[in-house]
């Protein structure tokens, strides 16, 4: 199907099903139960799942295939966001020009930065990307305030020209839409004690993620993808094999930058506000984590990783002391009290602690990410011997 082999088609359909049925899958608990706080089926969060999914899929094309660790990819997401909001201010609140601009501007930006950064490899490459991203961040906060609106963040206002739109007499800022369909439109469907929310903005983002996922499968299976893996495996050998790795690397860098731009564009399409904090280096670190959490260099990994991180971020950071008390309420008091105290370190503001620990545990025990974990479990269950050990990185060339 669609030029995919059987296995990839299965993978694609799996992701398709996940996305279509997300409103059900993410809302497994009835509204009135205590566990309803673990539901994630509301539009805002679902949108973030797929948007960060796109970001991580793109990042994985660079990091997963070539092994070049960029610590500045959030810059492209930020640039995409700004470009998107400007299109919505200048042209129309229809999101199509915004998305196109987000992808194009991020693409150009990543072309320039990639061209410079790719002259170095390894840790030097990481530092260079980090330096560029931090520069973008600092400039967005200071000198570029006329373009970025600095700390307040760039947003729509009534006075925007919106030249492609009819005069607006309503006195309110028009809502972002896709040819008239408002991003926030949708409906709830109550089944017994369950409420499932269907939101247009989510499904639109989801379509983009599917396209992004499809393209990434095709890239993985193409000669281009093979060359990128060859870069990771032994870049020197590539040279002696008659291949110039620069164009491949640059293409991968720009593609992943455009993915980040699309993610940034979609972010402002569902919520027209762009802030510089999206470019901060912790945001770049987050997408790295998503990718390794799911499984670097795998197709499905980044999608799962993005979902996991955003879910935990949301659920953990919302939990507070009374939630914890309720959660551990079944325990005797003398256990409950200390348990809640300890657990408090990991929820609410302390959610970053959970993130950091997850980061460490994954890198230490599951360098292949969750997918490798699942595979190991599967192998354990079926008692099958693994034939293909994950290979060690090739030894440094000696001469």
């Amino acid at each position, binding site marked *: 199907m669609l*030029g995919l*082999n059987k296995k990839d088609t299965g993978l694609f359909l799996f992701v398709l099903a996940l996305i279509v049925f997300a409103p059900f899958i993410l809302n497994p608990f009835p509204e009135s139960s205590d566990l309803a706080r673990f539901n994630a089926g509301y539009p805002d969060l679902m949108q973030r799942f797929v948007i960060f999914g796109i970001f991580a899929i793109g990042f994985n094309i660079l990091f997963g295939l070539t092994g070049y660790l960029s610590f500045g990819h959030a810059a492209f997401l930020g640039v995409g966001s700004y470009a998107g909001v400007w299109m919505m201010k200048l042209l129309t609140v229809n999101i199509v020009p915004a998305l196109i601009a987000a992808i194009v501007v991020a693409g150009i930006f990543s072309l320039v930065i990639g061209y410079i950064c790719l002259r170095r490899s390894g840790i030097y490459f990481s530092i260079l990307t980090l330096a560029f991203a931090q520069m973008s961040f600092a400039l967005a906060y200071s000198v570029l305030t006329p373009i970025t609106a600095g700390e307040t963040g760039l947003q729509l206002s009534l006075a925007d020209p919106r030249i492609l739109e009819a005069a607006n007499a309503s006195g309110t800022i028009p809502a972002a839409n896709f040819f008239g369909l408002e991003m926030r439109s949708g409906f709830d469907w109550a089944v017994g004690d369950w409420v499932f929310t269907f939101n247009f903005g989510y499904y639109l983002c989801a379509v983009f993620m599917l396209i992004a996922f499809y*393209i990434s499968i*095709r*890239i993985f*299976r*193409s*000669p*281009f*993808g*093979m*060359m990128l*893996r*060859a870069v*990771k*495996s*032994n870049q*020197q*050998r*590539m*040279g*002696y*094999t*008659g*291949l*110039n790795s*620069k*164009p*491949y690397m640059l*293409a991968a860098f720009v*593609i992943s930058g455009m993915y980040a731009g699309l993610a940034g564009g979609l972010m402002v399409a569902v919520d027209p506000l762009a802030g510089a904090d999206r470019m901060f280096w912790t945001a770049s670190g987050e997408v790295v984590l998503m990718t390794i959490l799911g499984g670097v260099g795998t197709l499905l990994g980044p999608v799962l990783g993005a979902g996991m991180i955003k879910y935990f971020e949301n659920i953990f950071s919302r939990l507070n002391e009374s939630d914890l008390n309720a959660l551990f309420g079944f325990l005797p008091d003398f256990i409950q009290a200390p348990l809640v105290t300890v657990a408090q370190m990991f929820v609410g503001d302390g959610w970053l602690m959970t993130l950091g620990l997850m980061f460490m545990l994954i890198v230490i025990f599951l360098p292949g990410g969750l997918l490798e974990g699942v595979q190991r479990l599967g192998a354990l269950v079926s008692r099958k011997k693994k034939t*293909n*050990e994950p*290979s*060690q*990185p*090739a*030894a440094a*060339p*000696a*001469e």
Partner: protein
Amino acid sequence: MKILTVEGVNKSFGGLKALNNVNFSVEQGAKHAIIGPNGAGKSTFLNCMIGRLAPDTGTVMFGDISLTGMKPYEINQVGVSRVFQTPEIFGDLTLLENVMIPSLAKRDGEYALHPFKRMEHDAEIRDKAMHMLEDVNLENKRDMTASSLSRGDKRRLELAMCLSQDPKLLLLDEPTAGMSRADTNKTIDLLKRIGDRGITKVVIEHDMHVVFSLADKVTVLAQGTIIAEGKPEDIKGDPRVQEAYLGGAHL
């Protein structure tokens, strides 16, 4: 006709003179061996030919193309392939992929961005790669990752990678180093077969058995200078060679 001409090449590392005014040429279709004691500058010499090192002075001509200053991938694209002393392969990739990559480089040039083409549909490249793997008896392992191979198999794989490009000139840096006698003989047979395809070969080797089975011409390098050149039989008897290389002992 000369396929490779090296003129007046010097190379120093700090105070150490690794190559001292080396003049050297290889005839089209020749099987040429470079021998010499450890530290004679053989590997440095090879590195200067393929662009891994830049010679301080002198020229390296491939036919009428100057290789000096060219990047490694450009040198490969004009038809020079190299097998390394320590196998340089794509360890994370399968054997089949390892051989398909050089074939692609040969067919599509130094880069070709085909993000949507499907690798498995490229029958031409695939068949050629399979054929190459059969040539080196690795076809049964084609879906294994290359890093899991034994050292001898890695060398054969690397050889297949180079051969899949139908190079005009093949440089081999101690192709049998660290191999058992049986593996060495297999490799010799393999290399002899290549010779029949008209590929010019330059072999750096320690093992005299290999040199005399493979080469029709031998150049002796000692302390960065060429001290003798000629047919294997002549070299064997040359007193200067015995002095420098063998320390006077007879072969």
